[in-house]
Structures are given as C-alpha cells and as structure tokens.
C-alpha cells in the first residue's frame, strides 16, 4: 500500500478514535448524571483516544520509512552471487540502483544482466511484502492504542491534563527542531569534510595557494591531481564582499542617518519601505542584473578608460551585492541610531551644536559599536551570498586584489562542485562539504561576534 494511503488511513483512524473516545466518556458518565460528572470535557477524552491511536503508529511509520530502503538493499544484496558482492562499493551502489530502477520500471531490461533481473524480481516481492507489513503494523498499533485509551476512560480520568501534557511535548519538539537542524548541518558537513581531509591534508586545504579541483574520477582517467588550496577562494570572497561593503555601508548608513534624524515622518514612512523592497528582490534577479547589465557596462567603461576589465569582474558582482545589502545596513543602523537616548541629542543641541555636529560628534561615537555589529552582519550576508556570484563572478581561482579581474568565491565553488553528476567518494565532491564547513564556521563566528557587540551596546542604554 502507498505511504500516502497509509497516512490518510491513519488520520481517518484517529478521527474515528476521537469520536469513539468522546462517546465512551458519555457512556461511562451516564450513570453518574451525565457529562458534568466527568473530570474533563468529553472532547478531551476524544483527543486522548485520537492521540493514543495516532502517535505510536506515526512513529512506526516514520521509522519504517527511514530504514526500509537500507534493509531492502541488504536483503537483496545478500541473495546475489558471490562475484557481485565483491565489487567495489561505488560499483555495487550503481549495480543496485539499476536493479531498483528496473523494478520501478524506469530502466528497461536491455542494460541489465540476468542476475540483476532476478534480483529485481526479488526486490519487487520484498518491497510488496514490506509495504503490506508496514500498513498492517501501523493499523494494528493504531487500533491497539485506541482500545487502550478507551479502556482507561473513567469519569475520574484527568483527560485534559493528559492531553495537554502530550501536547506540550509536541510543542517542545517543534522548537527543539531548531537544535536538530543545527546539529544536522554541523554533522552532515563535518562528516563529509572529515572524509575529504583523509584524502587531502587539512593544512594543504587551509594554507594552499592554488585551487584547481580537476581530478581523475576513475583510476584510468588522465587528469592532473587536483590541488585544493582554499586561500584563493577566501581572497576572492573577501574581495567581492569588500567591494559590496564599500557600496552598501556609505549609502545605507547615510540613508539611515538622514531618515532617522532629518526626514519628516511622512517622507520616512514612504521612503523606508520603498528602499526595503531592494531586500525583497530574489538574489537570482540580482545575479541576472549583474551578469547581463552591470558587468558589460563596467567592461565598456573600463575599456574606454584604457583598462583591461575581465568580463566577469569582481567589481560587477561586488557592486550588485552592495546594492542588495543596502537595505540591510540601513535598517540595522536605523535601529541602532534611534536607540541612542534623546537626552544625548538634546544635550548636544542645547550646547549650540548643529545637527551635523551632534550626529558626528555625539550620536555616531555612541552608536559605533552597534553600527560595527551591523556591518559585521552585513559582511556575513555578503560572504554567504551565492546566486549573484554564481552568475556574475568567475570560476578560476586567482589570488589578486584587483577588482577588475575575475575571481571566484567559496559559494561559487560549492555550487560548481555539486551541480551535475556526483560520486560521493571523490575528493572533488567532498571538497564542497569542506568549503561548506568553512563557510558555516566563518558566518557563524561573524554572527556571534556581531550579536554580542549589538547586545552589549543595547545594554549600555537600558
């Protein structure tokens, strides 16, 4: 039976359990003067029965789905003759995928040998019985759960407390998902990165000066053994991010100062959301804009000035990225500047300083830590930004500080290494996870420092 059908049936079963539980509560209360004699409302008994039916069965369903494919694989491979099981792990994986593909009807029999077709039949039989057993188990557990709950219904049963306790756990697990997500990110990235570092020494990765991940995927291919020095990527990332911050910080900060200190309320109410639409534009749109419009324009201008400009210059990607983070810098600085107490403004103005002097000599020094924190957050945004650089920056890793040349970034390399065919025991693919680890770590550090600085700054004025 299809998983969706099982799932829908399970929902139907728990709805039935709800009505049965509610009915049961009326029945047990009838002799004692009706529903008033119950500890909880009748519907709580219904909820209890429904939860008892649904939760354990759901757990079984999920576990089954998680482990089904690997158990099936082991069973099918165990039946194969000795010669096939001695294959290399990746070959065996491909071999098995062909079996499954044939069994599911997505591959025709021409590409397969006799044993594979037999194995596919075996797989089909196993899969069919697995899904039958799965459905049976789920329904059985649901029905048992429901009956157990019904049996426990008495007027004294504290069904409401019981249901609410279960529900509190559900709420808790929803919020705990955030921790699990972080854990998932760290573990998945770390796991593959460690495999990468078993092939390429970590020092070569962290301190190497050249990046060219062209590597032979199979032993018989002729290719240079790749070099995985990550410094050129870091340099490229920092170059583009610096250009971006050179655009975003002056424009964003000055806009924030003007809007919070000078502009009328009406002007501010119209302008701020309008500028914030820049933050809502999808990054792929900026990437297209950078690649099709800005890069050729910069090239033209550069050439008319007699400069050699790469067609995928860091400048183009950086400028567009800067435009993207203007609203980000603006709202962060705006929050920070408005948080400076009015007493400081009034004291300075009262001494006869002009508004400009007040801002430069009083407000900005007071707000500086917060603004620095905001800029760090913006920098972490720029470092992690992917689509703009994938579409507008280059692919070749160069160690340069000239923004007119083409550079590549960490995110670009992750995308190029992982889009397309993948083999998971190849350093080329694993390198992407090592880069992901670095990216995660760098942005995490920047965020932690930035949030710490901003919080310290806030506390100062509370």
């Amino acid at each position, binding site marked *: 039976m299809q998983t969706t059908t099982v799932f829908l049936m399970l929902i139907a079963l728990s709805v039935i359990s709800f009505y049965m539980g509610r009915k049961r509560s009326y029945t047990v209360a009838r002799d004692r003067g009706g529903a008033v004699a119950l500890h909880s409302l009748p519907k709580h008994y219904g909820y209890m029965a429904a939860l008892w039916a649904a939760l354990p069965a759901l757990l079984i369903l999920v576990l089954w789905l998680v482990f089904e494919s690997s158990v099936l694989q082991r069973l099918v491979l165990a039946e194969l003759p000795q010669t096939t099981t001695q294959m290399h792990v990746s070959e065996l994986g491909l071999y098995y995928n062909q079996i499954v593909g044939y069994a599911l009807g997505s591959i025709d029999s021409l590409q397969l040998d006799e044993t594979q077709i037999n194995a596919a039949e075996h797989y089909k039989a196993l899969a069919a019985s697995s899904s039958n057993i799965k459905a049976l188990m789920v329904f059985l557990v649901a029905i048992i759960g429901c009956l157990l709950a019904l049996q426990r219904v008495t007027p004294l049963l504290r069904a409401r407390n019981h249901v609410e306790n279960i529900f509190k756990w559900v709420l808790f697990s929803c919020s705990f998902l*955030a921790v699990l997500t972080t854990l998932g990110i760290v573990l998945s990235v770390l*796991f593959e990165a460690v495999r990468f570092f078993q092939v390429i020494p970590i020092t070569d990765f962290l301190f190497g000066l050249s990046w060219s991940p062209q590597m032979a995927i199979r032993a018989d291919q002729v290719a240079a053994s790749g070099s995985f020095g990550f410094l050129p990527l870091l340099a490229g990332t920092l170059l583009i991010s610096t250009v971006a911050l050179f655009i975003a910080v002056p424009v964003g900060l000055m806009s924030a100062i003007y809007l919070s200190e000078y502009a009328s309320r009406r002007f501010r109410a119209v302008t701020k959301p309008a500028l914030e639409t820049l933050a809502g534009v999808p990054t792929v749109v900026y990437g297209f804009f950078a690649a099709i419009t800005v890069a050729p324009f910069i090239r033209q201008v550069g050439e008319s000035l007699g400069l050699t400009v790469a067609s995928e210059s860091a400048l183009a990607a950086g400028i567009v990225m800067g435009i993207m983070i203007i609203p980000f810098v603006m709202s962060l600085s705006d929050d920070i500047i408005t948080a400076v107490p009015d007493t400081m403004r009034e004291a300075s103005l009262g001494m006869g300083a002009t508004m400009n002097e007040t801002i430069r000599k009083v407000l900005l020094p007071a707000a500086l830590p917060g603004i620095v924190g905001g800029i760090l957050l913006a920098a972490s945004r720029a470092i992690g930004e992917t689509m703009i650089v994938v*579409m507008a920056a280059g692919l070749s890793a160069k160690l340069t500080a000239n923004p007119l040349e083409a550079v590549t970034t960490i995110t670009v390399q992750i*995308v190029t290494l992982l889009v397309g065919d993948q083999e998971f025991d190849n350093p080329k693919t694993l390198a992407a996870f090592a880069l992901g680890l670095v990216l995660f770590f760098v942005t995490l550090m920047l965020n932690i420092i930035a949030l710490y600085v901003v919080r310290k700054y806030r506390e100062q004025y509370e």
Partner: protein
Amino acid sequence: MNNMSEKNHGSATAKIQASLKKRYAKERRFQWYGRLAVLTGFVFLFILLLDIVSKGYPAFTQHYIKLEINLDAERLGVEANAAEEELYAADYSSAIKSSLRDMFPTVSGRSEKRLLYRLVSIGAEYNLRDLVIKNPQLIGGTSDIWLRAHSEAGSYLKGQVAVAIPESDRRVKDIQVVWLGQLQEEGRVDSRFNTAFFTQGDSREPEMAGIKAALVGSFFTMLVTFCLAFPVGVFAAIYLEEFAPRNRLTDLIEININNLAAVPSIVFGLLGLAVFINFFGLPRSAPLVGGIVLSLMTLPTIIITSRAAIQAVSPSIRQAAMGVGASKLQTVFHHVLPVAMPGIMTGSIIGMAQALGETAPLLMIGMVAFIMDVPGSVTDPSTVLPVQIFLWADSPERGFTEKTSAAIMVLMAFLILMNAIAVILRKRFELK
C-alpha cells in the same frame, strides 16, 4: 579688568559668528549627503526594475506567420480518413516546408532553404499536428494557418535586430529580412499575446519555452514548505513564549534559532543533499526535498515573527481566560492565538516570499534539471521559477534573455502580491 573680559568676550563671539557661516554650510552639505544616499538607493532600484521590465516585456508577445498550407493526405503520409494515432505520426514538417517553398519559389540551394525554414519555429509542426487532430476536416484541403515565428525572426519583427551591423555578426540574415518584409506587406505577420509562455514547460527553443512547469513546481514546493514550516514554526513560538522554563535548554534553543536565521542558504542545501537525499534516500530534484529544505530555512523567520505577535497580545486576555478556568493550553489556543493570528500570518507570508525567491539550496538538491513536463506530484522531478530563471540566464541565445526577464517579472509580481497581502494584514492588525 572689566574691559578686558568684555574684550575677550567680544572676540569669542566674533569667532563664533565668523565660524557660523561655515558650520551652517557644513550642515547643509551633510543634509545633501543624506539626500544623495537615499536617492542613490532609489536610483539603483529604478535602474534594476527598468532594466528587467525593458528587457522582459517583449517576451509577452509572440509573432505569428500565416502560411497557406496544403494538407494533402498523401503529402502528410496518411490515409484519407486516418485515425488519431496515425495523424499523430504524420509528417507535418514537410507540409510546412513545402508551403514555405511555394511562397518563395525563387529560393534555391540548401543553405538558403535552411534559412527559409528557420522563419517559423521548429515547434510549429507540433502546433499544426494538434490543430489537425482537433479538426480532421482540414485534411485534403489548403488552408491559411497561423504558425509561431522562429525566435530569431521574432526578434527582427520586434525590432530588436540592428540591420546596420554586418550580416555575419547577426543571426537574422539579409535574405530573411527581405522575406519577412514581403510577408509583412502581404499581411501575413501578426503579433499576439504569448499564451505559450504560461501554458508550456521549458524548451530548447526560446519561442516554445514557457514557465508553466516551473510555476507548478514552485507551487508544490511552497505547498510542502508551508505545510511543514507554518505549524512547526507557530508551535515552536508558542512553546518558547508561553511554556518554556527559563533554563539552559531554552537558551540553547533560542541561540540556535537566532543563528539559523543567519546561516547562508546554500548551507541548507548541503544539509538537504547530505541528509535527505544521501541518508534518507528521498528522490532528487523533487519538490518534496526542496520544500523540506526551504521550510527549515524559513522556520527561524516564522518563529521570530510569531513570537513577536504572541508577545504583543495583551496579558489581560490571558488572565481573563485563566480566570474562568481555562487551562494554559486552552488559553493559548482559544484566546491568544486568534488575536495573534494576523501578525503570525504576516510573518509567515514574508517567510514564504523569501522561500519563493530562493535558488541556491535548490541547486544543491538537483532541482536544476531540464524539465519539459509539468510535475504532477511532490515527488516528480521538477524545477522552480527562480531556478528556471537561473537556467535561462545561463543560456547563450538572445531569445532566452527576454524570457528570463519576463520570468523575473512574473516572479516579482508574485512577491509583490504576497508582500502586499502581508502589509494589508499588518495594517488591519494595527487598527485593532
């Protein structure tokens, strides 16, 4: 003595008086810097939008060429009253080609003929096929039929080709320009609204390519994202605002949520690839995995905004509910949540808008495939609108630049719509 201080005082005043002009000038300059910064932001926004719209609007029209096509049964290679299956396999391409040759009898030579055939779309034969299957009575006669123009011919007809540049540097050749001019004079060229852009999947030919497959893919992905992120996000917010004890575990959860909000989106793609595809064996390129990844990504946004909305509910409502004997959970679900709902919805819509525009994590989980067919479920291979934009942007043909911009316009229209709904909800919420 008295005289001295007066004198000093006078000179200080004079000094201040003298500097005032400079200081006021500085003040005015500073204000202008501010205005300039705001203006710069607007100029960028304006250029961006203008660039996209000016590149994209031609894609909403499509030129058609009217050909007199002889649908002789023999020529099509079918019998007089053939069944649908036979009509499906008939040779429409040569019918179109011979009609083009009849129209320009002077054309000779292979290369010239090839240029002639390139006036109409390569996909035109399929349109003709569908037309004939719908109206089998056309067979045996000669009829005027409007066919889709090739994207290169179309771009000339839209006036995008500068005839002044050398012939070798452009795709539309001089002889094609002459033919198209003749067709235009005969009234055989017409420009219509490009419905195919909204009703077709991706194609290698710009004039045949549409965004329907990507739109449906986006819809399925958003459906999965919403079904996961909304309940989980709201529940998490309720727990953290109403139930969480003040302890280390709660702190850990809060720190994690704040940090996840700042993790680069591509890292979520790596998570999806390593965990959902490699470990759990979910299908690649499927909206299911895309939706799960995007829901993990939008979860922090939804949790943070929902918490703010729940926090804003007046404590008197909670106390009143508790006072009449409601339990904590009943208080939250029956009284606090309905009041906080507009705020929660606003945050969720903003989160969903972010997810709708997201590209990078979906590249990681293989949603970059060339998809012609409209996906039918959340496990079918599909692509989403931003990825379609990315794919078209990568394509070297000029016709696709136009399509890319048009697809961006559609995407932006959806985003503007979602944000407008969010703003309206917020306004109504504030009135309360």
